[in-house]
């Protein structure tokens, strides 16, 4: 570990030393020196593998015969893969809006309230723990015990169902309910992010606008509708798109909670199963490319919105 850190510190040191010899007279040489390691790492670590994966997505399972767009055909026609696509759609349509909604509501409710910092930390804390740990936490919430006289529920959700007079449910096995329960975990993690960004945006609204609206007799709902929401609109878009991108790539939650079984798989998880478990490299690569293609429009929209809000 220390060897690696020292090695990279040495690389930076050598670069700085060489740069120092030029004494700031020749920007061009120094700039290229500064950028060289970054460009090298990005080319080898992101650019080349990305291109390579696109290429491999046109090959068969073993990666030795060109099969054209067959892998993509499989993704869009095979019944199992269609479930994967359907689940991914559920995830991307539900998570960003639900997490942003909860985050925004909470940010407004605790704004300027007593103990705001503490109240915010409660919601924000799940963001700092791993998706794996979050999955363990929620698996315990969803835990199921068969409905027999002396067996007690140990998962809170099923216990609440029992308290309400219902029968315990195999929450993580029943499809499509299980997919929505996994999505709830992602919402739980991401709401803190939404709240933090939106809270900052809300606090940035100039006081005189709020004051003027108040003098005009605008009520709490009107305040939200006509003052707060328009003012934080750019931030809301950034939050929704950021969470949407994160949701598309979500792998850990599905992997840890169900392993993609019981019809819960999503593209990011299916990619892993196909590439490393089913040894179907071609299909795995194609799934990764589909993921990539789905991310692009969200990012482009995001950047355009950012530009417009800056203009």
């Amino acid at each position, binding site marked *: 570990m220390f060897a690696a850190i020292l090695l990279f510190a040495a690389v930076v040191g050598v670069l700085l030393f060489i740069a120092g010899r030029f004494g700031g007279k020749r920007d061009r040489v120094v700039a290229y020196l500064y950028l060289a390691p970054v460009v090298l790492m990005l080319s080898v670590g992101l*650019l080349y593998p990305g291109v390579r994966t696109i290429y491999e997505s046109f090959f068969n399972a073993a990666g030795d015969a060109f099969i054209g767009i067959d892998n993509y055909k499989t993704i869009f026609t095979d019944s199992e893969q269609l479930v994967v696509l359907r689940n991914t759609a559920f995830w991307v349509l539900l998570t960003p809006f639900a997490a942003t909604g909860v985050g925004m509501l*909470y940010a407004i409710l605790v704004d300027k309230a007593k103990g705001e910092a503490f109240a915010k930390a409660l919601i924000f804390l799940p963001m700092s723990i791993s998706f794996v740990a979050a999955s363990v*936490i929620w698996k315990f919430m969803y835990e199921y015990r068969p409905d027999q006289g002396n067996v007690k529920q*140990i998962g*809170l959700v099923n216990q609440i169902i029992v308290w309400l007079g219902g029968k315990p449910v195999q929450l993580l096995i029943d499809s499509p309910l299980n997919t929505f329960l996994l999505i709830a975990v992602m919402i739980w993690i991401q709401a803190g992010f939404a709240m933090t960004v939106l*809270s900052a945006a809300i606090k940035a609204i100039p006081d005189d606008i709020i004051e003027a609206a108040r003098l005009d007799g605008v009520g709490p709902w009107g305040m939200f509708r006509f003052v707060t929401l328009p003012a934080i609109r750019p931030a809301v878009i950034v939050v929704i798109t950021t969470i949407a991108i994160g949701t598309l790539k979500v792998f850990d939650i599905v992997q840890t909670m169900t392993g993609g079984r019981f019809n819960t798989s999503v593209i990011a998880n299916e990619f892993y199963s196909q590439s490393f478990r089913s040894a179907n490299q071609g299909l795995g690569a194609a799934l990764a490319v589909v993921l990539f293609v789905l991310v692009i429009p969200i990012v482009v929209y995001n950047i355009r919105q950012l530009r417009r809000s800056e203009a």
Partner: protein
Amino acid sequence: MTTATPLTTTPPVAVDKKESAASKAKKKLTSPWASLVAIIIAVLWTLPTFGLLISSFRPERAIKTSGWWTWFSDPTFTLDNYRSVFDPDAINLADFFLNSIVITLPAVIIPLCLASLAAYAFAWMKFPGKNFLFIAIFALQIVPIQVTLIPLLTLYVDMGIANTFWTLWLSHSAFALPLAIYILHNFIKEVPSSLIEAARMDGAGHVAIFFRVLLPLLTPALAAFGIFQFLWVWNDLLVSLTFAGSPEISPLTVQLSNLSGTRGTAWHLLSAGAFVSIIVPVTVFLLLQRYFVRGLLAGSVKG
């Protein structure tokens, strides 16, 4: 912003006209319903973690036969679960904990060093192809990690570094660079150019400017991204599962995920294991959340 400052219970003494108008309006807004909703959300967001935390201190039999909420009427306390997950002959979390640290530190420091050089070049130097390069690096943020994994794995095998920490250090560093350069560039750009000009007038070269002028100003940004990257690497599962196949180099997340799959009902081990993996990121988060939030805001909304 979100600093965990202790709550003051004494009301402000000097209440001027403006404040009273504001507090009046606030009273109108903070109806009991609003507080109730806020409390419900707070409870929903805290209860799952709290339940597992309580469980991690309950005896194995108790966890498996009764809900954690019964603990309030029948409190029992044991450290056995934590002892079991650290048992060197079984779960052995101590080794995985160490692996997590060994993986995370270089994976934070390497991209920080390289990205600050690049961000400096982009912010304060003139060279041909600057805009194109900057946009290209920014655009690389949209490449999902999934797209890179299999070719990288092949590459690491060919280079003979498969199943070493190098695969994780290099991958995490490469994946972090686009965002790191973007965030640091945003911060460096805000440094007044007169400061740089003045240093240049005094005959300082790029190296001197970087270390004496920029580095002190940049510390909050470096901290912000450092925490960001720390949490990301510490919490990662996908990259580790792909490259760190053998237990000698697997981090905590991999072992916890394995446990969850193979011993899905061993709640005494899972709950303790989860909290061992949570301790470090939550501590880092609580101590440095101000910087973390800054990084978050710089990365998502500008300004």
